[in-house]
């Protein structure tokens, strides 16, 4: 094995955006990395942690920590979950016996776009048609991990992609986990403003690196009949740069047709 990384998919990617997770894995494999996906993974524990249920969060987090024994980087396709693991795990385990193991893990957690740019310095060649997109910067990636330019630097490498910025790129979309259901009116007001901001860009795709934001803004866009497509940046990058056939050369796959790339995101629809 030349070089291995762990991939931590996150629960929202697992359930709603699995293709984004696969795209993240493929982007890493193409750089010659062996990607290890521990099948025992579930959720980082953030929902309970943010709600003040520290004991429940710790129990779930502890089960995750055990899955990454090797000293390899842990790549997470979500700024929010990566921030939970990097920044908040050590707080959550303060005074616990396993704090040293938790700190060791926290120190090698990376958000996906950050890892692609800062650690791997990926070069991307655009194979896609001209398209106008916009970018939503998620709060925790921005403010807890300091990720500002990395995702945009990746998009800037794509010759046929026009990135139109949001008027309020740094403003929260109103997701906030349980906030969206505890204070639905306030959250709805926030996401309505965000959806209007997205619509005003004239973009046909809304890209983000956090699936909570995507579910929120995407759900609002769909509710208002917008045709803007919400997508995780990993899926967008992979689709536009994947070799014909979809799979990376580093790890040949059986690649059942139509599952690796170019598949529509999970649809949302009213019951």
């Amino acid at each position: 094995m030349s070089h291995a990384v762990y991939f931590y998919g996150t629960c929202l990617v697992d359930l709603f955006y699995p293709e984004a997770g696969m795209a993240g894995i493929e982007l890493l494999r193409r750089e010659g990395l062996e990607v290890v996906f521990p099948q025992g993974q579930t959720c980082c524990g953030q929902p309970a942690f943010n709600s003040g249920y520290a004991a429940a969060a710790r129990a779930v987090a502890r089960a995750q920590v055990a899955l990454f024994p090797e000293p390899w980087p842990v790549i997470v396709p979500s700024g929010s979950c990566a921030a939970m693991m990097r920044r908040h795990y050590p707080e959550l385990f303060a005074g616990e016996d396993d704090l040293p193991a938790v700190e060791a893990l926290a120190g090698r957690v990376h958000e996906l776009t950050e890892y692609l740019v800062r650690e791997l310095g990926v070069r991307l060649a655009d194979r896609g048609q001209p398209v106008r997109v916009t970018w939503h910067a998620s709060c925790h990636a921005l403010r807890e991990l300091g990720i500002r330019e990395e995702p945009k630097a990746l998009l800037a490498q794509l010759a046929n992609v026009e990135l139109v910025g949001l008027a309020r790129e740094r403003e929260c979309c109103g997701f906030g986990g349980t906030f969206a259901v505890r204070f639905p009116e306030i959250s709805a007001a926030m996401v309505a403003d965000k959806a209007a901001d997205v619509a005003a860009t004239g973009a046909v795709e809304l890209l983000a690196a956090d699936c909570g934001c995507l579910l929120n803004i995407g759900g609002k866009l769909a509710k208002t009949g917008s045709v803007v497509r919400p997508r995780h940046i990993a899926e967008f990058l992979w689709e536009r740069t994947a070799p014909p056939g979809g799979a990376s050369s580093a790890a040949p796959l059986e690649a059942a047709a139509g599952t690796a790339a170019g598949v529509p995101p999970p649809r949302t629809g009213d019951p």
Partner: protein
Amino acid sequence: MTAAAADFRASAAAALADPQIRANFRRAMDGLMAKRAALFPDPAEWQALRALGAAIRARSLANLPELLERLEERCRANGIAVHWAETVADANAAVLSILRAHGATRVVKGKSMVSEEMHLNDFLEAHGVESLESDLGEYIVQLDQETPSHIIMPAIHKNGRQIARLFGEKIRGAQYTEDVDALTGMARRVLRRKFEEAGAGLSGVNFAVAETGTLVLIENEGNGRMSTHVPPVHVALMGIEKVVERLEDVPPLLALLCRSATGQTITTYTNLVSGPRGPGEKDGPREVHLVILDNGRSRIYLDPELRATLRCIRCGACMNHCPVYTRVGGHAYAAVYPGPIGKILTPQVEGLKARHELPHASSLCGACVEICPVEIPITEILIRLRGEASHPAPGSTVREAGEVRNPWEDLAWALWRRVHASSRAYRLVTRVLTRLRRLPAPRLGPLRAWTAARTTPRPAPRTLHELARDRGVRDA
């Protein structure tokens, strides 16, 4: 605070339905954010200055009991009488007894958030003392029998036309006008007379310097200087946390405060009150009193993490940058301190039973943490208080910790834990959801609240776990 007034949820929903409130706040907050940003152009300078500010405030708090004693001693040496007040009632009584000793039945007031905590105007009116706000924003709010909606800009919820109408109705002999200079002139004429008639002037305190016994008070309208220097008696009000150790601690804090609050490099007036009129001096009050209020602060002080709440220098930048405050406005919080700082301060002062919702009214976006000039970890404290409400930390000193039980929520998180602490249970549940391609109970509880504004999230046909395994991604 009545239960009805404390219902943040209802008042927030009402505010959201009022397009005028949303427009007024959005416009005002955009302006304040832009002005602040223009004065912190260099990120390195900003980070260095705020680190210094945070360190000064943390050092002051670390030595709080000792600094307060030194402040009292230095103030007394300067001729400033010091009054300690544990509760709001104690503070009101102290103010009233000073006023009565001088037969003062009319007072003018500079801006003071501590006086808002005390509901001092109402208290004085009830005891036969006319108390007039002299800060223009506070004057407007008082004229309309409202409370401030922002700690720096009390009348920010009103636009020019609303103020014009108010002045036209409430100021005797006023002609209706929307001309800002004319409106300001009207208020000025009323206030000038009142400054001369007042038996005492009241003010807040931005910083109290322990080593010199100096009270620092900043303002832009000159009303602070008039309130503290024209009437024969000056009564200053401060919370116990406002003390700093040395005079040299003040300039960095003022630089942070002015730039963060109003986007000014320095305010028009910087008052340093160091005692009453001295022998041979021609002006200044004959007596200066300092009322130092606790009102729950020493309880907050007991907890090393929550203590950071007391670093606050009341700049209001957290409000200006808060996506929730911007949309619901200040009155929705039904609290003296609205916005992010209010969400951590109010439940600690008033107790979690009536105020446990406030710490949840945040998406934890961290915009407030990013701009706080003294690095208060607001989101961490919000999360801490969320937990304290139902299952307190051992030895918790938070008021009414553990007194807000919600068995349904406990049950929900116990179930969540069950599913997510076991990979087998998790894989079973996600397998079922991806096969059904729907979430349970779409018309109940959380999902219903979600779908009022958004489509229902639909699970993918297969999980990432399945895709990864099928496509040959190595398991651990």
